[in-house]
Each structure stands twice: as structure tokens, then as C-alpha cells.
């Protein structure tokens, strides 16, 4: 299916990832004509490899590394943002977006996440706020994600209420999960199965997981990982109403004399400027890319960027803070087999005033460094082992199959100082101003990361680790979770989109992705992004059918 550029399509959707892929499927199967713009290539399952050198060291799915992405990073405004060796903003540039390369740990938010500001009161220096919607409003869409995207798992002791069971049983318990279970129970905690957007058995005509071990950073060659590439985009294309226009990097949304979005300007694979007319535009490019595009689309009518009369575009960036603890055990775990994470615990999900700071989080047991050798050798070895020479080699040979990690993920507080802006100097491979991230974790986020890491060390000790060590905690220098930068809200002076993802300023412009999130949740945002996308699509389709766009 190819649509003509000069005839307005019903919807131009920018981004084919967790949100864009779902919205494309929902709208196209409802009969609307949509063009999906994806700056990355159209890779399919058979294009994915186990090539660690290419995927990890050369950022194959991230767009080729910082020299191409042109991203820059700084901790605060006083610094000049630099382009570091490791890409600071890590999302996949490929059809299906980051749902292709993520580890697929799938948590719902809980009722508390949507109304925590009301429950706890304000936190000074932050934009901590309630969501305009509740868990109960989003629950049916979480269930839609479970059953349409394909989720494996079983309920845990603190889970939010669900209207339907998981469609598939959990993936097999790995050694890291067995040890985590043992250690956590010994100190009175309550681990549960990690839910995954990975098929534990054949589902909806797709194959089940073959446990190859290449989940994190890699695309799934079996199509068992429930990316939108595997689950949604085939249905969208089969509708006959959807064109996936890959290798098309959008650099501007044009508005007409009425201030309405009219056209999407983009670079094709040869770097030539192209334009697509559209009746309405939906931006689902992720919290960093979406913000940049809004800022790049400034015009006379929208001098501070499109949909930015509030000044909230790009603000309130939240990465979720992270910490980790690692251990070596006597026998082989072989964490390079199977999915990344096995068990998770949510005993510390809610804010506890006794801890002395805001926040909550989860701890999961996973391979992390030990999923592949280069990664492990570069980042995963104990700090007291030399980096080279005989001892390094011997201990590495011993540890690779005997090591595991407890990964802790926490809340991030929304703040003005953490944001996405246009880099004044650097550009990306297409010549667009680089995405400049300015970010310093809130002290409470780091305190929470430390609190969880201390618990993780206790768990590893109780599990019988021969040796355990905690990775140092410091303000992050980048992230994968790109949240909060075009937040939803009822107040047009303090949010970018309304509760249905329609921008307050431009009636035919919708934004739905991680940027919509008002709070960060406790660490695994993709399921919420997908639920929001199903919900947004329903409202967008209804509004379009009623002639209200």
C-alpha cells in the first residue's frame, strides 16, 4: 500500500514503536488511511542476528551510534552538552521502535501511580502531579495489551486488579530466579514471576519463545517477543489501509493559516526532502524525538514550538533511576540462556514515609551483563579483579556462567531542570539539530536506588552468593525510558495534551508515547505506553468518525 503525497491521508503517524504501531493497527483496521513514518530501516524477524559486536558495540539498532544520532548530554544548564562515546538516549531506530530491542519486562502501573500527588502532597522543586485519568480507566486497555500484544505471566501478591487472567503462563524459572526466590524469602520478601511481553507458547499465530537468550538490545528472530513489529504491524498492513514508510526521518510538522497541522516534512533514505499531506497528525516518536519535533516545528503562530503554549514540551524528562548488585555463585547458572529477567519483587513499590524520601521501585533477578561475553567483559566483572592479564582471563572464564545481577528500578520525579531541548551546535545524520538531554536525578530517586540496592545485597547474601558487589550509584548519564516530556493533563497551562492525547493548542495534532506519562511508574513503562496507545486510538477513531478532528 502506497499513498500519494499530495492527497491528504487521514492520519500521518510519526513513529512505528510501542505507541505508533498500535495506533496504526487500530486506525487502519477501522478503515482509516494511515502513513506511518519510521526513520529506521524496515527490518523483519529474519534480519535479526546474535551478533553482539554489531548490536552492542556498534549500536546497530540504535541508528549506528552517537556519530549518527548527534545526541548530546549534560547534567545541568551550566555545562556544555557533549556527545559521549555511548549514545545517551537509547531507543531503537527500526520498524517497531524500541519494542523490538527491549527486554520485554512488562509491569502495569498501579492505582497509586495515577494519584500519588493527592495522596502524598506536593514535593517542592518538582512538577509532581496526578494523572488526569485513573488506573480503572486504563485497566481495560492493559487487558487489551495482554491479549492482543501477547503477555506471559501470573498474578503476584501486590498486583493491581485485573479484569482478565494472563493469556499465557510465565516463562520458565531461570537459575537467577531460583536464587532470588531463596534469598528474598529468607529475609521475608515476596518475589513473583516477572511478566513478559514474550510468548511462552504459540499465540495468535505466532511462535513461542525458543529461549535463545538474545532479548536485551536484540530483535527477536522468532517473532516471539511481542514488539509491535511482530504483533501489530502485520495486521495494520493486512488491512490495506496502512503504509509503513521506513527510512523517512520527519523534521517538521507544517501548520496552515488556521494553525492546524497540514503536512509532514521528512527526509527520505537518500536525504531528499519530501512532504506528505495529512488531515491529522499523530506523534508517537518517543519522549525525546517527539519533543524535538515539536520544537523544530515552531512557526509564527507557534513561536515556542508546536503545541507548546504551556512551555511544557520537552520538560519533566524522567528516565527511572537504576541501580544493581551482582553476585557469583558456586555452580553454573548459564544466564545467557532464556529471557533476561526471571523473578521480580514489588514489596517496595509504594512510597514509605519511614524511608525519609519519596519513591518506590522494584528489584528483579536477571542476566544483565552475563547475557553475552563482550558486555560481561567490559562492564560486568567484579571491581577487585584486574581488567586484563591472567587473573582477569581466569576469573572471567569462571564467572561468565556463574554470575547474575539484581536490577533495581525506581521512580523519577518530574522537574523543569530535566528536559529535552535542541542542541545549538550539533546535528544528527540528517542535519536535524541534535537532541540535547539535560538531566540530573532527584536526590530522592538516587536515595531510592540506593535503598533497593542495599536490599538486593541482602538478598544475594541470603541466597548464598560466594561473592557479591554493588555497582556504584551516581547521577545517570543517559537513559532508555523517555517519559513525561509532553505530559497529559486537564490544564492547558501545565500540560501539552489532554486526557485523550489531543494537543491543547492544535486540534488535529495528537501525541501519544512515553512523553504522555505524568509520573514515571516504577521502572518498566512500555506496557503503560501500549495501553495508552490503545485508549488514544479508540478516542481518535471516535472523534474522526464524528467529524470532530
Amino acid at each position: 500500500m502506497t499513498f500519494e503525497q499530495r492527497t491528504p491521508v487521514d492520519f500521518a503517524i510519526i513513529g512505528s514503536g510501542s505507541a505508533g504501531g498500535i495506533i496504526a493497527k487500530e486506525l487502519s483496521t477501522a478503515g482509516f488511511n494511515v502513513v506511518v513514518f519510521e526513520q529506521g530501516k524496515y527490518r523483519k524477524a529474519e534480519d535479526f542476528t546474535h551478533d553482539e559486536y554489531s548490536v552492542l558495540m556498534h549500536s546497530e539498532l540504535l541508528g549506528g551510534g552517537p556519530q549518527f544520532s548527534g545526541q548530546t548530554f549534560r547534567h545541568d544548564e551550566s555545562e556544555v552538552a557533549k556527545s559521549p562515546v555511548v549514545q545517551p538516549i537509547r531507543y531503537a531506530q527500526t520498524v517497531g521502535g524500541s519494542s523490538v530491542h527491549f527486554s520485554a519486562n512488562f509491569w502495569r502501573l498501579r492505582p497509586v501511580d495515577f494519584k500519588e500527588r493527592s495522596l502524598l502532597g506536593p514535593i517542592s522543586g518538582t512538577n509532581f502531579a496526578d494523572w488526569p485519568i485513573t488506573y480503572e480507566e486504563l485497566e481495560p486497555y492493559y487487558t487489551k495489551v495482554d491479549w492482543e500484544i501477547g503477555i506471559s505471566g501470573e498474578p503476584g501478591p501486590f498486583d493491581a486488579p485485573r479484569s482478565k487472567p494472563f493469556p499465557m503462563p510465565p516463562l520458565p524459572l531461570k537459575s537467577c530466579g531460583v536464587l532470588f526466590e531463596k534469598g528474598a524469602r529468607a529475609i521475608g520478601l515476596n518475589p513473583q514471576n516477572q511478566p513478559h511481553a514474550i510468548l511462552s507458547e504459540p499465540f495468535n499465530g505466532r511462535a513461542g519463545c525458543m529461549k535463545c537468550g538474545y532479548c536485551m538490545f536484540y530483535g527477536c528472530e522468532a517473532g516471539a517477543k511481542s514488539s509491535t513489529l511482530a504483533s501489530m504491524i502485520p495486521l495494520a498492513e493486512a488491512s490495506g489501509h496502512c503504509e509503513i514508510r521506513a527510512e523517512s526521518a520527519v523534521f517538521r510538522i507544517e501548520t496552515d493559516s488556521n494553525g492546524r497541522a497540514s503536512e509532514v516534512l521528512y527526509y527520505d533514505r537518500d536525504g531528499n526532502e519530501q512532504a506528505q499531506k495529512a488531515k491529522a497528525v499523530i506523534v508517537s516518536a518517543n519522549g525525546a524525538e517527539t519533543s524535538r519535533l515539536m520544537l523544530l516545528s515552531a512557526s509564527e503562530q507557534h513561536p515556542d514550538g508546536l503545541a507548546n503554549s504551556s512551555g511544557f514540551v520537552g520538560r519533566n524528562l524522567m528516565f527511572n533511576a537504576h541501580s544493581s548488585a551482582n553476585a557469583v555463585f558456586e555452580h553454573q547458572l548459564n544466564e545467557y540462556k532464556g529471557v533476561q529477567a526471571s523473578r521480580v519483587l514489588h514489596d517496595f513499590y509504594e512510597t514509605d514515609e519511614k524511608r525519609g524520601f519519596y519513591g518506590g521501585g522494584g528489584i528483579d533477578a536477571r542476566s544483565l551483563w552475563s547475557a553475552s561475553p563482550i558486555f560481561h567483559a567490559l562492564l560486568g566483572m567484579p571491581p577487585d579483579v584486574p581488567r586484563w592479564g591472567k587473573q582477569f582471563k581466569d576469573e572471567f572464564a569462571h564467572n561468565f556462567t556463574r554470575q547474575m545481577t539484581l536490577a533495581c528500578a525506581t521512580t523519577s520525579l518530574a522537574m523543569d531542570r530535566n528536559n529535552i531541548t535542541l542542541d545549538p551546535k550539533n546535528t544528527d545524520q540528517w542535519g536535524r539539530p541534535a537532541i540535547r538531554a539535560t538531566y540530573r536525578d532527584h536526590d530522592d530517586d538516587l536515595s531510592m536506588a540506593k535503598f533497593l540496592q542495599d536490599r538486593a545485597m541482602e538478598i544475594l547474601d541470603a541466597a548464598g552468593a560466594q561473592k557479591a558487589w554493588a555497582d556504584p550509584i551516581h547521577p545517570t548519564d543517559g537513559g532508555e525510558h523517555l517519559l513525561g516530556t509532553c505530559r497529559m493533563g486537564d490544564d492547558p497551562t501545565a500540560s501539552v495534551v489532554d486526557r485523550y492525547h489531543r494537543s491543547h493548542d492544535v486540534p488535529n495534532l495528537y501525541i501519544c508515547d512515553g512523553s504522555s506519562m505524568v509520573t514515571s511508574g516504577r521502572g518498566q513503562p512500555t506496557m503503560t505506553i501500549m495501553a495508552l496507545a490503545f485508549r488514544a486510538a479508540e478516542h481518535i477513531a471516535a472523534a474522526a468518525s464524528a467529524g470532530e478532528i
Partner: protein
Amino acid sequence: MPNNSNVSRRRFLKSSGVLTGASLLKIGTPALIAITEAACSAKQEAAAFANLNVAAAADLAAIAARIMPTTDTPGATEAGVIYFIDRALGAEMQGMLEGLQAGLEDLNSRVTNQHTGSGRFAELEDGSQDELLTAIESGGFFNSLWMLTISGFFAMSSYGGNNENVAWDLIDFDGNHGAWEYPFGYYDAEYAKEKSIG
């Protein structure tokens, strides 16, 4: 569970054709030039290396061999890390070539300053090599080599190193494997056993 280092040791003995004890496995550094030359001319008659001259290749190979030394198990030399480095410096790591050449020059001037009579790094004894590398280990040159050595050792052999997957054998890892069957390791196997008994 098999003891992984024994497995790789046996495989290494078999594949390298070395029949006697561990002392013969240790390839002496002065012989490195000869070995790389011989290996290259055997591999490609016309040009030894695509992007490095023989002396530079010998030095870089010697550094890689100190980072991942040959012991009773294979190291960077047996994995052919130098072929990975040579290839990478003409391709995805092209930008590193100049810096590495400058770093090598600096290293070799340290060699002549500190070891009268010695020509190049590759000709030094292991202990002297380690001393020199320790002195520069926080610098960019060493860190580039460190990253290249780790990459070349463990990357798929199609990139030029990890010859016959010796690096993967060393750590008991099979990167070419597709599907795995549960249980994956000792603890999940024990857990499954207990569950079936219980």
C-alpha cells in the same frame, strides 16, 4: 555440569596440535613476529596485513596477548585477535588507526628509553611488557586496545578473531546456538528436581 576450563583446555590441545605439556603452549613473545608473519603469508600470499605493517601488527598482537594471555588455555594469540584488529582498523574502527599508530610510537620510545638494546615492544619479555602496559593502562591508547582485544576475542569469528570459537569455548558459551532447552543451569535444574519429588 562439566568443568568449563577443562573442556576448553582439551579442545585447545586438540585444535592447536600441541601435544606436550603446558610449557610449550606458552608462545614466547620474541617469536610473535615470526608467527604472525608465517600465519599471514600462509593466509594471504600477497599482503600480510591489510592495514598494519608487520612490526606494528607484532606490537599490537603482543599487547593483545598481555590483555588476554595464553596460559594453559588459549588467549588473544590463538584467537587471532590481531586479524580482527587489522580488519577493524580498515573498516568500522578506521577512526582509531592514527591514534593507535601514535600510541605505538610513544610505547616504543618508552621501550628504547627503558630497555637499552631492545628495539620494539613485541621483543620484550612478558614481565617487562606488563610493566610498560601498567604504566599506560589509564590512557586512551591502552583502553582502545583493551576494547579491541575484548571485541576481537569474543566477537563472532566472521570478524576475524575468535578463531574456531576458542574464546567462547573458554567461557563455556555457545553463541551460535539457537534454541535452548530448560533447565538452563544448576539451580533451576535442582529446583525442577525438588518440585517433581515434592
